[in-house]
């Protein structure tokens, strides 16, 4: 199977590989997939608690080239978005951008799951503090 140029580019030059401390202020972590399924994505967002904007994002992925590319692309798209806008990212956007073949669509689904999981974790951990910051 031939890979699209964009998948190859993300695989060779993955954007935003790395980790934030899980307890750092404004950080939300999503860990999705399972080793026995051959795909695990860890995606983290760092939200500015004053503005609600995602200032930084990082990922680490165990999976095929398309899984790596999907999560790399997701971190690129997340940066600069508000949390609400980030929730609007759909797996089909990733499929279209990376030109994923049908057999790789699950990679994009996993990336969307990772975004949602990271945002959920962020909201659980920091929603109160964010609310406090915005009212003060």
């Amino acid at each position: 199977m031939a890979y699209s140029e964009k998948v190859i580019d993300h695989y060779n030059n993955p954007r935003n590989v790395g980790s934030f401390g899980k307890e750092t202020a404004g950080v939300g972590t999503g860990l999705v997939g399972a080793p026995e399924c051959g795909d695990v994505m860890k995606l983290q967002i760092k939200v500015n608690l004053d503005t609600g904007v995602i200032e930084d994002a990082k990922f680490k992925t165990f999976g095929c080239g398309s899984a790596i590319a999907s999560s790399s692309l997701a971190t690129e798209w997340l940066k600069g978005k508000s949390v609400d806008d980030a929730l609007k990212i759909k797996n089909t956007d990733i499929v279209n951008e990376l030109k994923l073949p049908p057999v790789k669509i699950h990679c994009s689904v996993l990336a969307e799951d990772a975004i949602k999981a990271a945002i959920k974790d962020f909201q659980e951990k920091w929603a109160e503090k964010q609310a406090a910051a915005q009212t003060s």
Partner: protein
Amino acid sequence: MAVKLPIFMDSQSTTPMDPRVLEAMLPYFTEKFGHPGSRNHSFGWEAEAGVERGREQLAKLIGARDPKEIVYTSGGTESDNLALKGVAEMYREKGTHIVTSVIEHRAVLDTCRRLEKQGLTVTYVPVAADGIVDVEAIRGALTAKTILISVMTANNEIGTIQSMAEIGKLAKEKGILFHTDATQAVGKIPVDVEKMGIDLLTCSAHKMYGPKGIGALYVRRRGPRVRIAPMIDGGGHERGTRSGTVPVPLAVGFGKAAEICGQLMVEDSARLGKLRDKLQDKILSTVDETYLNGHPEKRLPHNLNISFAYVEGESVLMGLNKEVALSSGSACTSSTLEPSYVIAALGVGAELAHSSIRYGLHRFTTEEEVDYVAHRTIEVVKRLREMSPLYELAKEGVDLKSIQWKAE
């Protein structure tokens, strides 16, 4: 010396044709183009002579007493189909049970599935963690209705070599036919149908430096005389076992490839065994948490299969595929999204099955190529581990099994 890229190290899938084989084949495409079945003119005679010489060369390589025991087919898949379906149909009165192993090639397994739909029963004997089929497990699976044991000589993924002579002895003792898919083994290691008590044997030309498009099924004629029902009806070629014009150039090439394998087997296997060991030692000693799949000794000398924990196989191949052709048991390289059933059958856990890489050296592999592949594999695995969340968790001391994974 600079290494020429890309490097082919996927010889279980196919092998480059030996130039001497091509040379032997060429005249049979042009001036010696006759039909081997034409009995009344010289074009037919010389084509027939080529086909029969190929049969003799192949018979000699596998220790067959009589070249007539060789039936040409289109390849390994057809030979497996013909052996299993041919025996099932011919011996239906005698019995309806087949014993095979869980790590057979799909040409055997899927044929068995079809036979099951037609009313036969099949027992799939498991393998040990090293990929060896326990002969006693086969014995335990036999019933009064068993007509055939089918166990591959050497596995296409892990290279593990089965106890052929022992299985053959058991089959003889019980009066049951013994078929082996020896596609990966013939031409690489000694295979002798007499010494191993093999009644039916599958092999394929392109796995042994011959042309694609031709294979053979050895069918024993004496002690016992094995009879199989044909799958393809027609002009009654190959003594009625497989109708269809024998592709003369391919048969000539197959024979030549067999002859060369017979001459070079000792030398090739010793050289490739050393190179394979070098590749293995280099990788296993440099990269932590890498595991050899299959039996460490009882395996094909040119075969190496390693699982790299915490990285996914296809992503390793993707990092190498501009320079090196390899194969993986990763689900992402298959159309089914299931990881290799062979690696899974070893009980290593699906996550390591997703992380397996198969190396296949061949007659034209050089030491420089081996060094290059070892070096690049190590680089790519290290890079991928740096971006693996599993490696990070493991390094933090988290037991991956303690995590509640949310599977899709």
